[in-house]
């Protein structure tokens, strides 16, 4: 069975290629690197079924990390649920600074390199979570029910470089309309201008970072439209000169430096 395992590993590498949007799937490209499993599945129905199973597992991979924390919510309350969820995913949480007498430090609570985090926050069931840094976490739409739903007073949210955050996730952010002041979506590969359109609910937003979004088709135009949509918000986006290709003599405006 050694050769089958080899095929699966190779095939999994190829499957990541399917996900990337820049690579068109042409008949030639699929012929170049045919793995053993691909070859066999043309002849054996069982191999074909095996490949379908592997594909399904690939797609459902994110679900375990984003399972619902409803039982924890019953026992510990909403704030602890949200904090626990984020910390388990590898993100960081910060509590409301006016309650700092409960803490030695009002810094971010983060898991260390072994994934362990301090558990004092489990005591603070009534303390609202103020800021969440979920950069690079595997949070997806299902996981969002553990985030904006319980954490009603969230002021700062960073979803930078989250690979599974897409337009559907953004449509759930309206629940934070009253409290959210800063939001960062920089570097999320699946967020497009269609998801950005539903950020208009967030009227308290003061800072929005939408730089480096590969799925947005016209970054400059999108930034203008988002700025019109949220007049009180400062929008950090792409370099202005990108949208001004046709008029090289016009001076490009200076936007604040972008750093995710």
């Amino acid at each position, binding site marked *: 069975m050694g050769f089958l395992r080899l095929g699966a590993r190779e095939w999994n590498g190829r499957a990541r290629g*399917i*996900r990337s949007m820049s690579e068109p*799937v042409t008949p030639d490209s*699929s012929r170049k690197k045919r793995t053993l499993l*691909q070859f066999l*599945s043309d002849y054996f129905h069982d191999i*074909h*079924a095996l*490949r*379908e199973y592997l*594909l*399904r597992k690939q*797609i*459902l991979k994110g679900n375990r990390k984003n399972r619902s924390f409803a039982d924890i919510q019953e026992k510990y309350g909403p704030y602890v649920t949200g904090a626990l969820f984020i910390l388990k995913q590898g993100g960081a949480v910060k509590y409301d600074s006016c309650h700092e007498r409960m803490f030695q430090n009002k810094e971010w609570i983060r898991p260390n390199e072994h994934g362990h985090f301090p558990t004092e926050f489990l005591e603070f069931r009534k303390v609202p979570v103020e800021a969440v840094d979920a950069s690079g976490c595997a949070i997806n*739409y299902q996981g969002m029910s553990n985030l904006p739903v319980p954490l009603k007073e969230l002021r700062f949210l960073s979803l930078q470089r989250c690979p599974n955050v897409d*337009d*559907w996730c*953004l*449509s*759930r952010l*309206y629940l934070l309309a009253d409290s959210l002041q800063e939001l960062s979506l920089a570097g999320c590969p699946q967020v*497009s*201008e*269609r*998801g*950005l*359109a*539903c950020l*208009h*609910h967030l009227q308290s937003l003061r800072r929005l970072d939408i730089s480096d979004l590969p799925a947005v*088709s*016209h970054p400059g*135009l*999108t930034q203008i*439209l*988002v700025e*019109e*949509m949220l007049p009180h918000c400062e929008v950090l986006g792409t370099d202005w000169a990108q949208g001004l290709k046709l008029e090289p003599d016009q001076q490009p405006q200076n936007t604040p430096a972008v750093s995710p």
Partner: protein
Amino acid sequence: MTNWDAKVSEFKKKIECILPGKQWEEPYDTSHLPPKQSDVVIVGGGILGLSVAFWLKKLENRRGAIRVLVVEQDHTYSRASSTGPSVGGIWQQFSVPENVQLSLFSINFLRNINEYLAVVDAPLVDLRFNPSGCLLLASEKDAATLENNVKMQRQEGAKVCLMSPEQLQNKFPWINTEGVALASYGMEDEGWFDAWSLLQGLRRKVQSMGVLLYQGEVTSFITSSSQMQTPSGEQVVLRRINKVHVKMDKSLEYQPVECAAVINAAGPWSGQIAELAGIGKGLPGTLQGTKLPVEPRKRYVHLWHCPQGPGLETPLVADISGVYFRREGLGSNYLGGYSPTEEEEPDPTNLEVDHDFFQNKVWPHLVQRVPSFKTLKVQRAWAGYYDYNTFDQNGVVGPHPLVVNMYFATGFSGRGLQHAPGIGRAVAEMVLDGQFNTIDMSPFLFTRFYLGEKLQEYNIL
């Protein structure tokens, strides 16, 4: 034992032909024809037909248990109501609870589209969903109905909120709230998407599941009937469809396909297909004489450009007058249309666009509701067919009471696209289990046409 000698001599003759040196007459090549037998034949390969095929294969007990054949007249889908012509909207704001449940299931399906439709070695389906919500406006006389509807929708789980004219003006300053007493706005799970990619994704998936897709036309049904008696002693004639004659495209060749069940998902032409099976051939007022009241109705969609128009936050707006519109893309383009009254119905015999229709019927209402649309310029317009149910504009699902193995999945009058996943599942459950397991669609059965029970939907787009 009769004719045994004749059969043996015939057999000997055939063997002699095959031996080397003799004349070998090749059997006729029928690989371009559909198979001679199929468990289920689905008439119509549009979004509803493909959805039923998908769920039949997904819910079967054993892999490869059901053989499904989908017969579609036009593989380019040039007249299909669910693709290029479609505005592609999905919303949960209905007055019939089953419609709300169907929409909620459909949005779940669309959100997890790749869990359902992923095919090995094929690119993932990208629906380009715009989660911008849907805004329904109501005048004074409809305000109470709207409020009740919203209460029911929230009970079912839809996230809809009510807005007063002041709140509406605050949120969307480009709306003229004159005449608006109440508005309902979907906060989540509503918007619009690319119907064509859904259709192609479904086609790819059902082909990988083993469904046969054929380009052809259903010309007739071969039925057999039997006399039965109801518990009250009445005589009824029940009919079964035994064979479906599928005619090949651009030729007179046809293949009789023996089948166990036929699904009528022919969209605007479902009425004609039903007549072929003998539905409606009888005295008017009887069950035999009740026709399937689905006919094609032409609807226009117009695309216009307006640089001063509403911004990125624009939802799918449905006005009191029947006009609706939404944004299209980033370049200040808008798509919209109008549901005409019975007197204003355009002629459905062709798909020509009547440009005066926009000038006279659509533009005045648009400008009244959104004053900045005064400077709009129409770029394009096209037409498509609705599978319009003339009885109550709601779909027909389930078996016919007399032609026992014909199941309907049609008549949704413009909402077939957004409800397709739910309807497909309901029909598949009916065919496989004999009952609706998840969403109870009994109010949508055929018998309501005979009994005269209308299932009216409040707002139709």
